[in-house]
């Protein structure tokens, strides 16, 4: 099991977001999370990655608790958040290099060139990221995927703002990754079709239930 989420219970800001949430991701599997805005897709990714901690429940990556993973072991997943972390006044290639250093994969210029070439970004590699359009920015952060050697990919809204051509290209990367034994968890607020993938639809928790929890929270804690 690559990724395992067992009965996670999480609230924040008096708002219950996950109640007894379960998810299992196997090797060579693509899973798509579908849900409307504010349902907690980004929160789920942050829980998996270990930025947030659930009040109850267990999250495991490769059968290891995420809270107990330290720097080196954490490098076995690649997470592309919604806020891409690209610096406006650095060029594309500098941004990618920075990311490459931080994520500690080996610096390989040929690989870097090919990854940028895949989305036709190598021609404009010395352009500042601040001058790019929203879709081009997304492409820059997606090209990190080709650079990474990790088996588990966590992608937050990868298809946002892309044109149809690059959506197809992205899907091709994902399928290749699946064929090589990798697994992908991606979120989307619209329906996307990828070959042989599973879909999970996140529903809004019922109003009444949420209210109960909120009351319990504030009273018990007082």
């Amino acid at each position, binding site marked *: 099991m690559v990724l395992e989420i067992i009965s996670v219970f999480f609230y924040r800001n008096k708002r219950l977001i996950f109640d007894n949430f379960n998810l299992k991701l196997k090797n060579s599997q693509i899973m798509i999370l579908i849900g409307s805005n504010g349902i907690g897709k980004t929160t789920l990714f942050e829980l998996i990655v*270990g930025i*947030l901690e659930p009040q109850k429940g267990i999250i495991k990556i490769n059968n290891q608790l995420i809270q107990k993973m330290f*720097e080196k072991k954490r490098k076995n997943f690649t997470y592309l958040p919604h806020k891409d972390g690209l610096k406006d006044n*650095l060029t594309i290639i*500098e941004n990618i290099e920075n990311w490459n*250093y*931080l994520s500690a994969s080996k610096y390989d210029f040929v690989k870097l060139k090919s990854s940028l070439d895949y989305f036709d970004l190598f021609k404009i590699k010395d352009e500042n990221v601040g001058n790019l359009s929203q879709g081009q920015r997304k492409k820059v952060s997606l090209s990190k995927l080709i650079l990474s050697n990790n088996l588990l990919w966590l992608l937050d809204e990868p298809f946002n703002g892309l044109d149809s051509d690059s959506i197809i290209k992205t899907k091709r990367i994902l399928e290749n990754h699946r064929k090589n034994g990798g697994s992908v968890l991606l979120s989307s607020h619209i329906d996307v079709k990828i070959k042989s993938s599973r879909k999970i639809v996140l529903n809004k928790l019922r109003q009444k239930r949420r209210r109960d929890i909120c009351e319990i929270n504030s009273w018990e804690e007082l």
Partner: protein
Amino acid sequence: MRIDGFFNLIKREMRICLKNSFVMISFSSFFLISILIFVFAFGSGSIDGDKLYKPIVWVLLIFSLMLISENFTNNDYADGSLKEMQFLGYSEEVIILSKGIAMWFMIMLPTFFLIPISSILFNVTFTNSVILFLNICLACPSLILISLVSSLFSIQLKNNKIIQFIIIFPFYMPIIIFTTSTTNNDIDGYIFDDNNFLILIGIFFITLPISLLTSKLIMKEINR
């Protein structure tokens, strides 16, 4: 914590710093222009340079530290790279430490040129300016750490400047007291016998663990 991860972080910060050279330029021009304003305000005739010079430089340095620290934390928070560094597994202390080192570099490099120029403008003796420079060297690390922590405190607020100043002020005060008292004692020529230099180093070793710990707590709180 592997050591090359730390160097990678420093490399990243330095690269961003050098690319953001306008920050350095704006810092130095702010410094010089304010010094010039003080010179004009005192009038060209009689400036009691030795006495007024040090407090003025310290006031300017503190304000510019506050302004610059925003560039290191708030920008990273805004574009999500603070989070990115955290989930890549770098511990919060190391992130803050690397930022502090980059910021120290960014402050000290212009100061190396600014202090002599401004001391000429103020008619300050050579030894005095050397002592001031040494003081800045020793006191800056702790000031930088404190200002980084305070900018982390106010990262999620809209009108954060005032709050940052009020939070920062009580913790700046002891350092300022000791630095100014060093520079006042140098009349006899006993520069390096002074205990205050040692006290400044001691203060740095107190602030280092405390600020790293608090920054860890705060950065966990920011995401919550």
